[in-house]
């Protein structure tokens, strides 16, 4: 099998002249922007990986005159910290991406939903936003951005819970459909994108979709910011071309003793050593919003699993039964097996429960608990039992 080398790139944090890009986007207009986004093949960087061009196209097609652009800066997934870094270093590109999205779909207002844990960034961000508003006014954009702060609830990163929270309510996810592009914030057509996705829009408009597509693979175009942590000598934030295998990743970032990589945070998948070589990190393999946690052989995967389950049990909004009860039962279940109160075969029942949660939970939280649960139990069964 061909092994690709890890390719580091510097597009997200590179300093550029935002005015030039925004003038170009303004001239391209709605159709021009959407075509570039579609041609680029870019997919959402928040985790779910929906094609951004399509999202914008759907929203643009809605006849309703009042529309919104929402930047999802809730960044609650354990192990991701890239959105804060992006906002800290190049907020003007995030605002720029929102303005481009607004021009594409015909929106005049935008919100950045920033997690409460990042409140310390606010004074700086508000100042930068001021300068940004002045710049886009000069170019001719009719667009205003406002900040909303979260208050310590992971579920508010889920897009419809985020809308509820901006509307001043409990952050409880809504039923889908209708999707946000039709009925989002305040019931109006809304584009919601991750911080990094919005910066990608700026990169695409600046360099053109063709150049963008030349990076990455057919299904995972472009580059991605990875948040690397755990057992690594070099924890931090890295922008890497998509398409590498887990083995290449571990060679670059591991401490020589990696036994597992958790790709995509608590909601993601655990890749064990034996699967490193065949696992591609990207939409054709294991997708990730950027969270990459390495575990070496000194770590107990029971502790890892227990920590994730505790997280989910706490952060479940409690709205639907499979998730509210399921997260608690999984947590108590593995504890009971560990203590020897339940036979090891009970793990099979728990795996079935996690599968049931996948198909019956209302939102992505309950639906994805089984990702980590099943991949850890499957690959590290002994560690869970003994």
């Amino acid at each position, binding site marked *: 099998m061909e092994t690709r080398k890890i390719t580091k790139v510097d597009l997200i944090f590179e300093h550029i002249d935002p005015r030039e890009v925004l003038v170009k986007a303004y001239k391209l207009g709605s159709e021009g922007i959407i075509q570039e986004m579609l041609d680029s093949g870019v997919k959402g960087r928040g985790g779910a990986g929906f094609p951004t061009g399509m999202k914008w196209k759907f929203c643009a097609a809605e006849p309703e005159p009042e529309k919104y652009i929402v930047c999802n800066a809730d960044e609650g997934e354990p192990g991701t910290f890239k959105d804060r870094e992006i906002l800290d270093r190049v907020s003007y590109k995030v605002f720029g991406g929102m303005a481009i999205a607004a021009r594409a779909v015909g929106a005049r207002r935008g919100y950045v939903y920033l997690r409460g844990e990042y409140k310390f960034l606010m004074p700086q961000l508000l100042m930068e936003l001021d300068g940004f508003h002045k710049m886009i006014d000069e170019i001719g954009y009719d667009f205003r951005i406002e900040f909303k702060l979260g208050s*310590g609830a992971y579920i508010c990163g889920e897009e419809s819970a985020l809308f509820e929270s901006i509307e001043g309510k409990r952050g409880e996810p809504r039923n889908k459909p209708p999707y946000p592009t039709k009925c989002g914030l305040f019931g109006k057509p809304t584009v919601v994108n991750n911080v990094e996705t919005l910066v990608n829009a700026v990169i695409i408009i600046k360099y053109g979709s063709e150049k963008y597509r030349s990076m990455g693979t057919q299904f995972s175009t472009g580059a991605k910011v990875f948040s690397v942590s755990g057992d690594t000598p070099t924890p931090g934030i890295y922008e890497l071309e998509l398409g590498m295998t887990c083995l290449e990743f571990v060679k670059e970032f591991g401490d020589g003793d990696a036994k597992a990589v958790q790709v995509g945070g608590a909601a993601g998948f655990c890749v064990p050593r034996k699967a490193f070589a065949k696992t591609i990190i990207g939409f054709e393999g294991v997708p990730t919003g950027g969270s990459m946690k390495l575990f070496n052989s000194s770590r107990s995967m029971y502790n890892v699993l227990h920590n994730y389950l505790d997280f989910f049990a706490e952060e479940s909004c409690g709205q639907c039964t499979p998730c509210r009860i399921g997260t608690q039962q999984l947590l108590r279940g593995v504890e009971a097996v560990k203590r020897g109160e339940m036979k090891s075969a009970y793990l099979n029942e728990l795996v079935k429960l996690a599968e049931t949660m996948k198909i019956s939970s209302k939102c992505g939280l309950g639906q994805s608990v089984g990702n980590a649960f099943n991949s850890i139990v499957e690959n590290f069964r002994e560690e869970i039992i003994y």
Partner: protein
Amino acid sequence: MYQTDNLVKELVELHGAGRTSLIPILQGIVEKYNYLSDDAMVEVAKELDLSAAEVYGTASFYSFLDIKPRGKYVIRVCKTITCSMKGKMEVIETLEDMLKIKVGETTSNGKFTLLETNCMGWCHKAPAMLINEIPYTELTTEKVVKIIKDYMHQ
């Protein structure tokens, strides 16, 4: 218990009396008094023409909108996996030792509350904690001692 004086009215003036202002208003109260008293929530309900249950229901959903009395400095130590691998327990033990309280408690002088929280996005600089809104990272016992001493003298 505290008197909100004119704070609620001022916040309503600043943010407006619509439903979307509810969370910013509650955040403003917590910023000043560290938690939401029953009286404060009732007052907000009156000002926004909502039921008190509605206000309580919204506030109690969010872990940063505390409805229990909290100290002037709320310490939140990250308990998610990377921080717990990289020495979160020592951080907690040092804090418990210095403040003479357990996780979840407030010092008798009302100055510090010690809590745990989920991932706050500092895994590459673990272990980490927040004191009110300020993050502290790459913590060691010595660092924690120094930070807390500084707060004690404030």
